[in-house]
């Protein structure tokens, strides 16, 4: 195995193990912590795929905002007593079955496919000479301008919705 393959093997193994830990831990805070470690590994995977801006965004948004939000809610609801209760629903063997079947199915399919598509202009060298941030910025504000605006609208709706939902009734 070459060096990138060893690197990938480590990251892939860790991401798999960590995601298993995330869905099986009894204590939600431990889940969040494992998820944080998993996000860091995914960010490292993005770095190996030459997407450094996304790696930074992954940590800033996922680890810095979303996961802190989760942690905040867990702490706000103070779920300590629930740690003693059972963590899985009654149909959990069925869920395991679904997960395993899905995994075998998709792996057996996507493991064999070969992707044939025209190569784009953003080679590793091209991105590196211009910088990841600038490349993404240029694409974002030309080809993807409309989706970008829609995304900002979506965030606005999310902000308003969150405020409305979480606000205590005044009466």
């Amino acid at each position, binding site marked *: 195995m070459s060096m990138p393959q060893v690197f990938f093997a480590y990251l892939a193994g860790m991401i798999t193990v960590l995601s298993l830990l995330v869905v099986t831990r009894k204590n939600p805070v431990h889940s969040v912590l494992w998820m944080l470690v998993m996000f860091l590994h995914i960010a490292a995977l993005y770095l190996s795929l030459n997407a450094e801006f996304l790696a930074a965004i992954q940590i800033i948004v996922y680890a810095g905002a979303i996961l802190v939000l989760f942690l*905040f809610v867990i702490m706000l609801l103070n779920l300590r007593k629930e740690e003693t209760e059972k963590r899985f629903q009654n149909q959990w063997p069925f869920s395991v079955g679904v997960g395993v079947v899905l995994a075998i199915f998709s792996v057996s399919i996507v493991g064999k496919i070969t992707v044939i598509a025209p190569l784009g202009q953003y080679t590793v060298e091209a991105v590196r000479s211009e910088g990841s941030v600038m490349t993404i910025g240029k694409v974002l504000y030309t080809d993807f301008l409309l989706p970008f605006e829609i995304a900002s609208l979506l965030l606005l709706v999310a902000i308003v919705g969150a405020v409305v939902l979480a606000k205590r009734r005044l009466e």
Partner: protein
Amino acid sequence: MDLIQFIMTLIVIGVFLLHVAFVQYFERKALGHMQSRLGPMRVGWHGLLQPIADSVKLLFKEDIMPANADKPIFYLAPIIGVVAAITSLAVIPIWPGFSIANLNIGILFILALSSVGAYSIVLAGWASNSKYSFLGGLRSSAQVISYEIAMGLSLVGVMMLAGSANLTDIVNAQSKSWFILYQPVACLIFVLSALAETNRVPFDLTEAESELVAGYATEYSGFRWALFFMAEYAGMFVMSALGAVCFLGGWNGPDFGIFANVPKIIWFLLKVYGCIFTYFWLRATLPRYRYDQLMNLGWKIFIPLSLANIVVTGLVRVLWKG
């Protein structure tokens, strides 16, 4: 990754930790004189060896673990803080041509690590199984989320002026004049958000002595507490360095007369220590903010103001350069 760079990294980390220790001495001295006191005077000449004495004392203190604490997280929390703070140093350009990692996403890297650093406080507060710690952790998580937005947005103006998120490029773009002249509002927002990010007065609600004993660090003692202490001061150092790089021109100094021969790192350190002194100066002057005031300031003033700053900067840049 060659050996020389590795050794260089070790040296930088060592010197950095020494700086962190003496920033604490500097704070006690500065605060003391601002209150007409002297500060530490006993250990060594004018108390210069005080940080070393303190660290020796903290190393040998008893390590207390509260009952019902979540042990792994309790152990892990201070380490996350220190690692995040020290790793942030990697992208700071220290003198021309030297930063441990010259990343294209330097500013984003620091923002990312500061958000990871917030976990240390939140998890410490949760794992201690103490109400004071818990309140400190909750406050910290809300505070860091809110102020990180303002800080990131205030740095966007700098990135727009320099045309890059690489800190070395940002410093090079300031060789003529500093960005604080073009971005005074962003600088102000950055300074205040940095105060909130590092949990310093007037935004030190996470450890507010008069309300929460010591906030998230209430249950910590000995070496673990020392790690928190180190993380706080390392974070302060990194934030000051970021401020110096983004707004005060980094290593750029006057280049006429005898000033041209001064090593560039001296200018950098002077600016960093100037920023750190501002931290202490504000601490000696301002009282603590109330929690709702803090949130109002962050969401209702800083974020709109920094957005407006971005718009104005963009407009001016487009109109000016055509």
